[in-house]
């Protein structure tokens, strides 16, 4: 009924919108590199889940990846807070270590783990239609489910996320747990990374996490507008990225990221040039509802 193109674009859009929404919070919380770290660190979790379950079924993979995503954030916290290592180095050490472990597991058990290294880097979105259930690709079912969960998380948790993002001190006085929301967000990021993994790979999902949110943040100071914008940018990039990839006969996810990059560059140049032409004194307002 639907073409491959439709499913590929839909999959890309689901990944882009879900991660773009979460990415807005990462950008505002200055935690984008933690998102980057998590997306690398889930690799050993996925490999171990593969080894134990012996299949590509999603539940063990989700659990394994979420566990290692959490382990990575905990490691970063421990290095930073307990061992007083500066934050950038804590992040750098933690994720390279876990990623190295993941690559070792995948190459060593190559005959048992059906994941190749390229897939780790840029995913297999082109083959999304290979595995279907009720005529709908499995990936779309999973990403659709994730999409609903994340939307629910953001809608229901809007106040909590909002407070802990912009004014953690005030949140504490209101009795809102900053740590709880931190780990909920990190859990959501881990889940998104894992489910996006097969489609766009471990590293490109970082672009989907960071770039739409960052671009939207350049355009607006309002959180709600920012969330909508990032979703819109993600969908635009998925559609045009697909056709760019078709044109070049190259990786779809790579093309989607390239389009995201071009969109950011356009907005950025426009902003900078605009400021040069109309150098009015602008107050940088804090983001508000």
């Amino acid at each position: 009924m639907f073409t491959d193109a439709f499913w590929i674009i839909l999959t890309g859009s689901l990944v882009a919108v879900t991660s773009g929404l979460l990415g807005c919070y990462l950008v505002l919380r200055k935690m984008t590199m933690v998102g980057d770290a998590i997306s690398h660190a889930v690799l050993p979790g996925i490999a171990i889940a593969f080894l134990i379950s012996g299949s590509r079924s999603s539940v063990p993979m989700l659990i394994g990846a979420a566990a290692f995503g959490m382990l990575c954030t905990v490691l970063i916290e421990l290095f930073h807070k307990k061992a007083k290592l500066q934050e950038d180095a804590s992040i750098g050490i933690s994720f390279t270590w876990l990623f190295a472990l993941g690559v070792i597991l995948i190459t060593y058990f190559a005959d048992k783990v059906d994941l190749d290294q390229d897939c780790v880097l840029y995913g297999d979105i082109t083959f999304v239609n290979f595995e279907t259930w009720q005529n709908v690709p499995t990936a779309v079912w999973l990403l659709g489910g994730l999409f609903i969960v994340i939307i629910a998380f953001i809608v229901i948790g809007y106040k909590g996320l909002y407070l802990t993002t912009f004014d953690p001190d005030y949140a504490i006085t209101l009795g809102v747990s900053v740590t709880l929301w931190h780990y909920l967000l990190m859990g959501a990021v881990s889940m998104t990374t894992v489910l996006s993994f097969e489609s766009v790979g471990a590293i490109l999902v970082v672009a989907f996490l960071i770039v739409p949110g960052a671009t939207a943040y350049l355009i607006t100071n309002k959180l709600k507008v920012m969330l909508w914008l990032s979703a819109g940018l993600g969908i635009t990039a998925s559609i045009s990225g697909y056709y760019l990839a078709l044109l070049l006969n190259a990786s779809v996810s790579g093309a989607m990221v390239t389009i995201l990059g071009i969109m950011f560059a356009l907005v950025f140049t426009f902003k900078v040039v605009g400021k040069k032409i109309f150098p009015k004194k602008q107050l940088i307002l804090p983001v508000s509802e």
Partner: protein
Amino acid sequence: MNSFFNFLSLSDPNVLFVVVGMILLGISSATIGTFAFLQKRALTGDAIAHSVLPGVCLAFILFDTRNLWVLLGGAFVTGWLSIICVDLITRHSKLKSDTAIGLVLSVFFGVGILLLTFIQQSGNAAQSGLNNFLFGKAAAMHPDDIKTMGAVSIIIITAVVIFYKEFKLLSFDPQYAQAVGLPVNKLQLLLTTLTVAAVAAGIQAVGVVLMAAMLITPAAAAKYWTNKLRVMILLAVLFAVIGSIIGAYVSYIDNKMPTGPWIVMMISAIAVLSILFAPKKGVVPKYITRKKYLHKMLRENILKELYHLEEKNPGKHIFSISEIVEEREMKSREFKQGFKMLVQKDLVVKHLSGYLLTEAGQIEGKRITRIHRLWEMYLTQQLQIQGDHVHEDAEAIEHIITPEIELKLIQLLEKPEKDPHEKIIPY
């Protein structure tokens, strides 16, 4: 064990290339990485590493060659460009540096993947080597690769030796460096350029993702052993070299094991061990020192309270648990632990109806009380602090003051008889 000696003898030319190559890589990346680490630019190294991919691919598309120097040239250009982009974004927008780094890193990498797959699917036969830039191919080092790494190492070491003082100042105190008239921007440019060179040279050994570890992890491990920059650089290089050799050995005995990731694993293991156990700065030695200090404080506080009780009740020496707890609130666990230590040290004796100070314990309790009251005197007299504000401060300092400082206090205050609260200072 036999395989180990075979490995060490370096008789196999393949092993020789890998070991020499990794040592050279360790030297250059750990040296330059130490400065990146100190400047808190660890993630910048990560950004550079990801950003060399589009450069390699572009160079390949434009010049249609697999000549290493051409590809590295491309890598160098985009690696460098990425840093400029990060700089532009942070300077001209409200985005913070972490977002800028993540953004540049992932977009450059995405473009790199686009180009790489474009090359692969165009069916060009010569493209087979490009994949190595993603995950590295440390196990299949070529003499040409060694030459490149050697050249880069020599350049980096020469530059660091010549500009050692300048780089040091730039890393620790850029404002001061500017104030004394150093060309800070140019030096920063040089340092960045060297980092890009180290990354470009190392990338095909360990791959884009793990290159960041080669830069930061050895420096982070070295930080826990020393405060001297020179020693830190040498240690970082040493750690990188040890990690590299063990990593190369692991993949030598089992060729299913990938070399690059094992090297990173080993260097990370060294870093984690250093963070945990390095003397003085490690987590465990620090924890032990703190515990010891807390125990000392607990003991001294109890001795002091017993002394106070003796003061208040002339002639009485044995005090029951309830009397002691009334004087100073303690958790029962603290109480038990404290008295256990004091009894062991023969400062307190346990009696049927309670505890009493031994002679040594009495001297010690007197000493703490004396220091406490002298310090209160000092604060009120010399620093003009109100008498009701000085107790807390004295509580803390009484455990720290040495006999020498105590003597000075006595001289300065001319051996006062009473403290601000009219209590007698015992000598």
